């Protein structure tokens, strides 16, 4: 189990989430006391373009996860298309090319469930806009293992299916408007 120094924050999104994610990243403080991992559904042909252009735009490292990438505070990670992402103890990403889950690979549920079990209360997750139900079960697992969960207000989401199924599945999630999500990150709000 992880200690206080190893916080991780996960952002899961699908269709309609990239704009908000970009805004979150543009408003991040220079120093992060946690690892930030972003998982979005995208096609393989889109490849590594997002990481590269964001890294230049934000002028900070944005890393596309590969086999056994170590998890470090202060770094922004993106899940690559075509693989599920899990977390191996004590703290490396592991890739898995097994069957799609919720028609998705990477599946947000797979990452969230794995992270919940390793990070417990030191795991915080956000579920954003999307057109399917991926991520809902993952939020529930994070809650059950003592982590914090947040969901984009469906009325702010470009596509509300994913936030709504998140709300239905998880009982304790805080629902936030877009500007509050951005402020959560920019003001480094209580991370454990």
């Amino acid at each position, binding site marked *: 189990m992880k200690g206080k120094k190893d916080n991780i924050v996960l952002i899961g999104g699908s269709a309609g989430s990239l704009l908000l994610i970009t805004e979150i990243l543009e408003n991040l403080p220079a120093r992060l006391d946690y690892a930030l991992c972003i998982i979005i559904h995208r096609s393989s042909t889109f490849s590594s373009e997002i990481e590269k252009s964001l890294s230049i735009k934000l002028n900070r490292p944005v890393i596309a996860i*590969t*086999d056994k990438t170590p998890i470090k505070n202060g770094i922004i990670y993106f899940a690559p298309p075509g693989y599920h992402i899990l977390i*191996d103890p004590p703290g490396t990403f592991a890739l*898995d090319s*097994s069957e799609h889950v919720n028609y998705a690979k990477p599946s947000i549920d797979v990452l969230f*469930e794995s992270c919940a079990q390793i990070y417990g209360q030191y795991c915080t997750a956000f579920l954003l806009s999307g057109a399917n139900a991926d991520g809902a079960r993952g939020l529930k697992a994070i809650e059950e*293992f003592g982590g914090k969960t947040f969901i984009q207000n469906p009325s702010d989401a470009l596509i509300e299916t994913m936030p709504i199924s998140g709300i239905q599945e998880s009982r304790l999630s805080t629902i936030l408007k877009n500007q509050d999500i951005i402020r959560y990150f920019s003001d480094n709000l209580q991370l454990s």
Partner: protein
Amino acid sequence: MVGLKKSEFISFSDLDEVVYLLKNISEFDLTGYSKSSLKRRIERFLSMEKMDLVDLKSAILNIDGFENYFIQELMVNVTEMFRDPQFFRQLKAKTFPYLQTYPQLRIWSAGCATGEEAYSLAILLKENNLLNRSFIYGTDVSLKALDFARKGVYPLAKIKSYTDNFNKAGLASEFSSHYTAMYDAAIINNEYRNKILFSTHNLVSDHVFNEFQLILCRNVMIYFDKELQEHVLQLFYESLALFGFLCLGSKESLYGHAIKDRFKVIDSNLNIYQKVK
């Protein structure tokens, strides 16, 4: 798979116990496998079989042959024809000019699953007039996957995405010229099946069995921890002829492994390496 409740996840110490039991009663040693993936596969197995951990341990100990079935269900056999089309393009562009200089080519697809990778290679070799001098070994630990591979029969439903891959891989022929469609299946042409031998080989416990000019091991070592990767890379090193090529999956690399010094990087994006000393 339906969502698991907290109580339905198994713990990492439960996992260790299952691995330990298996190791004691069979030739399967999963000690070096990535813990989180393996744990998730076991949870999936338990929910599919409607078993709990106690049932599982007792089955491992008491049911003859259970371990073979269990291991096969834990392995991830997901694969495609011409998976990562760019890889096949670069394989041709960057290794074939050199491979052409050999009178005979021995090729190893390690962790070949249901055979798509080996057949893709055979098709690529054929199109470059190299198939007649080549022989491909496809190996895996899953007997079930190997049986499937030997048949060379794939559901037509998958052929559309395989054709998309094929078309991106830069070959001159039509994909449909390499198989015969029958009812809802595509049967790979005989000339390819005759050039491939599918057999069991466990990368964890088996040894060098031939010398190769080309080894592909893609999306297999992602399931291994660093230490086991080290061991398997040593096996590949010893199995390669000098100036032979080693190809890893799109998210894997030799970076961070001591053995990297013995290889030249041929393509750092697509992870093609050449043994140079």
